[in-house]
Structure formats: C-alpha cells, structure tokens
C-alpha cells in the first residue's frame, strides 16, 4: 500500500513498546497473579489455580459491589447522555451566548475528580448548600444527609458524576449535529416537520455514531468508577456505596493482592462483555450517509 512506503512500520515500535509495557503486560500478568496466592503474609508466590475465584464467590461481598456498580453505571449512562444530548440540541440552535454556555458546561470535565468530590461534599453536607436551598424553597422535608444516608448516597454520587461529564457528552453530540448535512434538515422542514419530529426522525438517527461512542465511553467510565466514590464516601457508610473498584482497593489495603487481582479480572470481564454487547447493538442502528 502507498502509506506503507511513506511511513515504515517500525515507527510503530515506540508506541507498541510503551503500550505493551504499561498496558498489555500488566493486564496479562494480572490474569496470572489472580491464579496465585500472592499476599502480604507470604514470602514467595505460589500458583493455586482458581482458589481466589472460589473464595470470591464464597465470600459473596463482591456481588454486592457489582450490583452497586451496575446500578451506578445505568444511572450515569442514561442521564449523562440524556442531559448531554439535550444541551447539545439547545446549544446548536441560535440561542444567545451559546459558545459561552458550551464552555461553561464542558468545564467540569477538565477539573480533577477529587476536586469535584470535595466540592460536592460541601454541597451534600447536612448543613450544606443543597439542604439550605431545599429549606429555602419550602422543601425542608426532603433534606437529608445525602452522603450519610445509605438509601440515597449512591444516587447522590451518580449525580456528581453526571454533572461532571454531561458536558463531555454534549461536546461529542454537538460535533455530531454540526456534521449533519444542512440539505437533510432543510428537506425535512420543506416536508413540514416540526422541531420534535425533526429531532426524532432526522437528527437522532444521524447522530448514531456519536450516540454509540458516548454510551460506550460512559458505560466503561462508570463501571470503572473509583475516584468520585473514594472522595465522597470511600464506599461507606457501611458498604452502601461499595463499588467494585473500592472493593479491590480495600482488598489491596488488607494485603490480599491476588484476591484483589482476581476481583479486578472479574471487573475486566464484566466491562468487556457489557461493552462489546452494547457496541454490537448500537452499531446495528448506525446509518451510513
């Protein structure tokens, strides 16, 4: 091929070396270490087969963490995309100051997640901004300790996550909307479509590639969630907001490295299966122009 002559393949080597050393090798060695008895108490590492996985199943607390992670991922994926799409639709019309709004909504996703975590801690505190606001508008009965109440803490964290990344989804949707050929929109206007019909039958189907990438990114990101949970609740109170990554973190803190690694392999498999299945489903509905 023409390109082969212009750029020799060995130029890939530096990238492959970095990728191999920092991603492929740790991932594969992780699979291996999950089959050993590696922990802080032992001087040497021994191969023990599937023992760690059997212990994981027997202990049963990973199931709880997986359940929280799935609920969290579902909420974040739905609302991050719903909100992102809504913002993108509004900010691609002739609304005044749309560029300023685009910047404002995108800004949170360039901030450190830990910073977002501390900001939301202040918002969610019992005497924090949210409860004061609720009391001010006469909804005092709805106030609670948002991160201390086991029934709502997981949802409160997912709101912080949606707030942070809805702007990122918005940016991808805006890019997708802007490349939709004007003729198609104009043709649908001439055919007499209203705004909602135009969104439903013209814009949304043509946005399918943006939709696919956004859904996949938010799914993977939220299944792997760690920092925001760690900053807001560390998985507590009790294990009310324990997600798989905080569970793995705790097992490593206990010095149970192989056990934590086995949990990590489980998370990897769950993410791979869900992402590939979602990708397969979403790809089918993408339209080629």
């Amino acid at each position, binding site marked *: 091929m023409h390109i082969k002559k212009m750029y020799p393949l060995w130029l890939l080597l530096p990238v492959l070396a970095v990728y191999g050393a920092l991603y492929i090798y740790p991932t594969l060695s992780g699979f291996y270490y999950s089959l050993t*008895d590696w*922990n802080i*108490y*032992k001087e040497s590492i021994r191969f023990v087969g599937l023992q760690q996985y059997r*212990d994981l199943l027997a*202990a049963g607390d990973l199931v709880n963490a997986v359940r929280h992670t799935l609920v969290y991922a579902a909420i974040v994926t739905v609302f991050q995309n719903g909100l992102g799409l809504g913002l993108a639709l509004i900010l691609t019309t002739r609304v005044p100051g749309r560029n300023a709004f685009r910047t404002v909504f995108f800004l949170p996703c360039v901030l450190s997640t830990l910073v977002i975590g501390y900001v939301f801690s202040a918002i969610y*505190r*019992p005497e924090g901004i949210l409860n004061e606001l609720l009391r001010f508008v006469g909804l005092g009965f709805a106030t609670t*300790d948002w*991160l*201390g*109440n*086991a029934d709502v803490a997981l949802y409160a964290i997912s709101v912080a996550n949606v707030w942070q990344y809805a702007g990122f989804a918005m940016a991808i949707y805006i890019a997708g909307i802007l490349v939709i050929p004007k003729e198609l929109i104009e043709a649908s206007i001439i055919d007499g479509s209203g705004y909602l019909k135009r969104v439903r039958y013209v814009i949304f189907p043509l946005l399918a590639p943006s939709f696919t990438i956004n859904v996949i990114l938010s799914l993977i990101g939220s299944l792997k969630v760690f920092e925001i949970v760690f900053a807001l*609740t*560390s*998985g*507590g*109170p*009790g*294990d*009310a907001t*324990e997600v798989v990554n905080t569970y793995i973190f*705790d097992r490593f*803190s*206990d*010095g*149970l490295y192989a*056990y934590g690694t086995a949990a990590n392999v489980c998370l990897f498999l769950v993410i791979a299966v869900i992402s590939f299945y979602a990708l397969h489903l979403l790809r089918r509905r993408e339209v080629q122009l």
Partner: protein
Amino acid sequence: MPRTYDELLADAEKIKAAGITPFYEAGKDGWPLQVFTFSGFANLLAKQPDLMDKINAHQTTFDQIPEFVDMLQKQADLVKKGYANKNLFSGTYDLSLDELATGKSAMVINADWALPTLLAKYPDAPVGMFPQPFEADSYVGISDPQAAFAFKNSKNVEQAKDLLAYIAEPETLKTYYDAAKTMPSWLGVEAALNGGTADLQPVVEAGRAAPFFNGLTAVSVGDYTKELQALYGGDKTAAEVAKALQKNIDTAAKAAGLAGW
C-alpha cells in the same frame, strides 16, 4: 468523672437534656469508631490474659466472646439513645476536635494523639481524659509504640547505629517527648504532658493498660471501620459485626496459611 458505665450514661442523659451533644462520632472518617472497642478490649484481656493467644490460634473467635459483643452493643446504643451527633455519617475527626474544644459536644471517644492538634488550635480549651468506665477500675487501650530499624546490609550501618544511639540518648528523648507530649515508652524519661495525657498516666503506670487489639491479632483486622458504620446505621447487629470482624481475620489468616485455619 463517671466511674461506672451507668454513671456515664446518666451523665450523657443530663448533657443531652442541656442541649449539648454527649458524644461526637466521626462516622464519615470512620476510623475513630474503632477506638471504642480497640481500647475497651483491654478490660477483657485483663480478665483473660490468654484470650489473644486463643484468638490467634483460632480456638476462639470474636463472635464467641459475649463481652466483646456486649461492648459493640453498648457502642450501638450510644447512637440509639440519641447520645451521638445527628448526621453522624458526616462527622469527621477534625470536626470532632472543634466540637469538643468549643463545648458543642461534651465527649469524643479517641486517644490522646488528638490533644496536640486540638491545643494548637484552641490553646485554652478545658479538655481532660478518662478511661471508658466499663469497670470501676477500667483498663485503657494503648496504641503500641513503633520501633526504628536499621537495614543490616546497608552501606551505612555504622551511621545508622549512630543515629539510633542518638535517638535513644536521654537528652534527645526528653526533647522529643517534651515536644510530642505523649507518654514516654522509655523508663526514666520524664516529659511535660498535656492535661489529658497526664490524666491517664497514673492508669497506665498502674499497669491498667493493654495494646489495642488490632496490634495483637496475628493478621490484619481488615476493614473493621465499615462494619462499625453498618452497626451505627442499623444495617448490622452487634453479633453480626463481631462475625464480620472474625470473617476478615479468617480470610487474612487463611491467606497467610496460619495454623488453626
């Protein structure tokens, strides 16, 4: 100063009636919740000196020690009786010191490592300490002192030994303990202590002290904090928390391949 647990509860009731939080619990940070049993366990060790050996040989388990489960129940009851701060899962260690120093809360269950921080911010805070009165002459738990080590294959073994010898000199120790204001773990070293620490010194010097039990178990106690949060939240009973603590130990002990598991 309350001498029995009933007296403590009666005092808490009076404090609560006066509109002050009897116990400030740092439920968000979580680790301070451990001190209640870490320290109280010293009373069980005083009565059964071989208790820890039995636990470490897996001859008994935490959930089979009724006194331990009872201690957890007492801890849960502090919350149930309304003696703890509202929204205790937002409570942090830093806030607990503020609340104590400013008199918004009457008591904090913690160790004297809190005093230097507290007094740096509130030099005149009238703060003292007393042992949790599980017994008339209650024992206290101590976080056992750490040791310094030198690596024998180091290139600078002699210098390392010199440094350790310097640290162990009476004059250095005096300087250190005068600044740190913790109870010296060296014989013959006198230090000027903060009021609260001085309150407990006679108890420790009378021998009514034992290390926190997490320093005595053969393996890590795991994430005991999370279990105590579940106890406070009403998600687990005292017996279930004791079981969960034992489960953490069982998991680690099996991983370590200890005899008895």
